[in-house]
């Protein structure tokens, strides 16, 4: 933008309460009120900058998910996985614009049941300062709020994507995502973050171990059950490994997710509050690190050799685990949570496998199991107790799992949810997209 218009624009931007910087020059008679206005405006601006940065970090998590899923699946299904993850971001943002945001933050009236609310279609910022400095007592603008929350939305669906990978039909899956992201996620989200009934009950979920990860996890579990295991995963009763094809991409994904989590958790403070945010970043990082150590130990002991894919799952497990209580647990507890979630993740992946629940990327383990664990771990903090936490976990379970199950079943018995045996063997890249992910490279498609 050309710099000429700036000064004009700025003074405008500072809104009602602010002084045009212009006055900086001629040291006019400034009153304390002027100074305070400018100071509050500066505070508003920095809070908003922080929330925007957090938004970027959450955005990049979608690339992280895409890479983790790609790395843990086979080369012949890569294009399909990348496609799904790209489409989900778009679907998530657009449906959130249309209805999600107003479904999640309906602004429940006093004494409302707080079970369901909808503030209408589309998004529009309140006029003037009400959409700016006054919107969230100087923490962020209406638009920042919308975008930050919108970036969260798609996450729930992305989690499902990995679990049903390598066999799900593209079209029907996108339909599932649309419904789940547009309605289920924001609706149940309103119970807590929308200030609904669960919030009233004292349930605590700082950044979404339950509201985001478990919600996605329940969807994943439902999907896995309805669609069934991949061909070759269980051969006459025996569990067979189907190896992922690209460990560097998996690693890129895991690190990007960790990076994104700084925004996911750090941004959930909903202001740049130095003390609160920096503390959250520390608990988040230490839990992730502990998750690595925990899973490394478990993997080394159980599998004899340390499994990279397990250790990276462990890092994510630690991150999901700390998400519910990142701001209320102590540093020590953050490390414990990481160690527990990390080691549990290793066992959990194996258990799901033996339960014939074929989850190529461990989404159910990382997001559902550790999401629940993390939510319960909140109880270790002085001002929270196990009761409401259990209530929360159960409430989301009894709504999300069945609804996901129903959506998937309806799709299964109408348009069908699974590709043909031939297509699955040949790979979804050729089947659904008529493309190859690594054209010219030689790899065995039958493995």
């Amino acid at each position, binding site marked *: 933008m050309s710099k000429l218009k700036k000064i004009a624009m700025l003074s405008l931007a500072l809104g009602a309460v602010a002084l045009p910087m212009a006055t900086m020059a001629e040291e006019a008679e400034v009153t304390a009120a002027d100074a305070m206005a400018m100071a509050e405006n500066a505070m508003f601006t920095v809070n908003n900058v922080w929330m925007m940065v957090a938004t970027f970090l959450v955005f990049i998590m979608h690339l992280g998910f895409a890479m983790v899923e790609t790395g843990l699946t086979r080369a012949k299904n890569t294009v399909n996985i990348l496609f799904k993850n790209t489409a989900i971001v778009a679907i998530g943002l657009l449906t959130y614009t249309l209805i999600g945001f107003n479904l999640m933050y309906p602004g429940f009236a006093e004494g409302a049941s707080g079970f369901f609310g909808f503030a209408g279609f589309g998004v529009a910022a309140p006029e003037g300062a009400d959409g700016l400095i006054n919107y969230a007592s100087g923490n962020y603008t209406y638009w920042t709020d919308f975008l930050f929350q919108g970036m969260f939305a798609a996450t729930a669906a992305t989690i499902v994507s990995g679990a049903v990978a390598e066999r799900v039909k593209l079209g029907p899956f996108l339909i599932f995502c649309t419904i789940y992201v547009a309605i289920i996620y924001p609706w149940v989200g309103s119970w807590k973050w929308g200030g609904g009934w669960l919030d009233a009950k004292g349930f605590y979920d700082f950044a979404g171990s339950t509201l985001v990860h478990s919600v996605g996890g329940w969807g994943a579990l439902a999907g896995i059950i309805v669609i069934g295991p991949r061909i*070759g995963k269980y051969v006459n009763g025996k569990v067979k490994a189907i190896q992922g094809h690209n460990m560097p991409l998996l690693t890129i994904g895991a690190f990007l997710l960790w990076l994104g989590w700084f925004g996911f958790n750090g941004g959930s403070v909903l202001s740049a509050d130095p003390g609160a945010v920096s503390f959250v970043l520390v608990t988040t990082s230490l839990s992730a690190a502990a998750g690595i150590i925990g899973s490394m130990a478990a993997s080394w002991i159980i599998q004899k050799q340390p499994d990279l894919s397990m250790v990276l799952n462990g890092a994510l497990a630690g991150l999901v685990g700390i998400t519910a209580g990142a701001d209320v647990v102590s540093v020590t507890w953050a490390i414990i949570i990481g160690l527990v979630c990390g080691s549990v993740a290793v066992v959990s992946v194996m258990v799901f496998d033996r339960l014939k629940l074929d989850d190529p990327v461990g989404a159910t383990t990382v997001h559902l199991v550790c999401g629940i664990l993390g939510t319960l771990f909140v109880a270790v903090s002085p001002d929270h107790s196990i009761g409401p936490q259990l209530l929360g976990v159960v409430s989301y379970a009894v709504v999300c799992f069945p609804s996901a199950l129903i959506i998937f079943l309806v799709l299964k018995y109408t348009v069908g949810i699974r590709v043909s045996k*031939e297509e699955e*063997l*040949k790979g979804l890249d*050729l089947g659904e997209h*008529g*493309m*190859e992910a690594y054209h010219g490279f*030689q*790899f*065995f*498609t*039958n493995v």
Partner: protein
Amino acid sequence: MKLIIAYIQPEALNEVKQSLYDAEVYKMSITNAMGCGQQKGYHETYRGADIEVNLLKKVRMEIAVNDEYVESTTDAIIRGARSGNIGDGKIFIIDLPECIRIRTGEKGPEAVG
């Protein structure tokens, strides 16, 4: 001794391996290959440009066997690889006058197994 060369569909590999095991043929070598034959190939469209793929992914198996095993081996391959569709593949059988096991230096029939 004979050297049996078979081109099969990649998807069929596991079943072929299985039926070879059943036929007590445990030794084989496979490589990645691309083939074109009656199977016409398919059309990808990449960025809107139609692309006719006529070299399709195949798996090439090479199995050296003693003469008495030829029949059972080819049958096993056919059992595992036949889907009845074009593209199932071919088996080529050539004479194998000599075979050596590197580890022991053994030669001939006993080296094959």
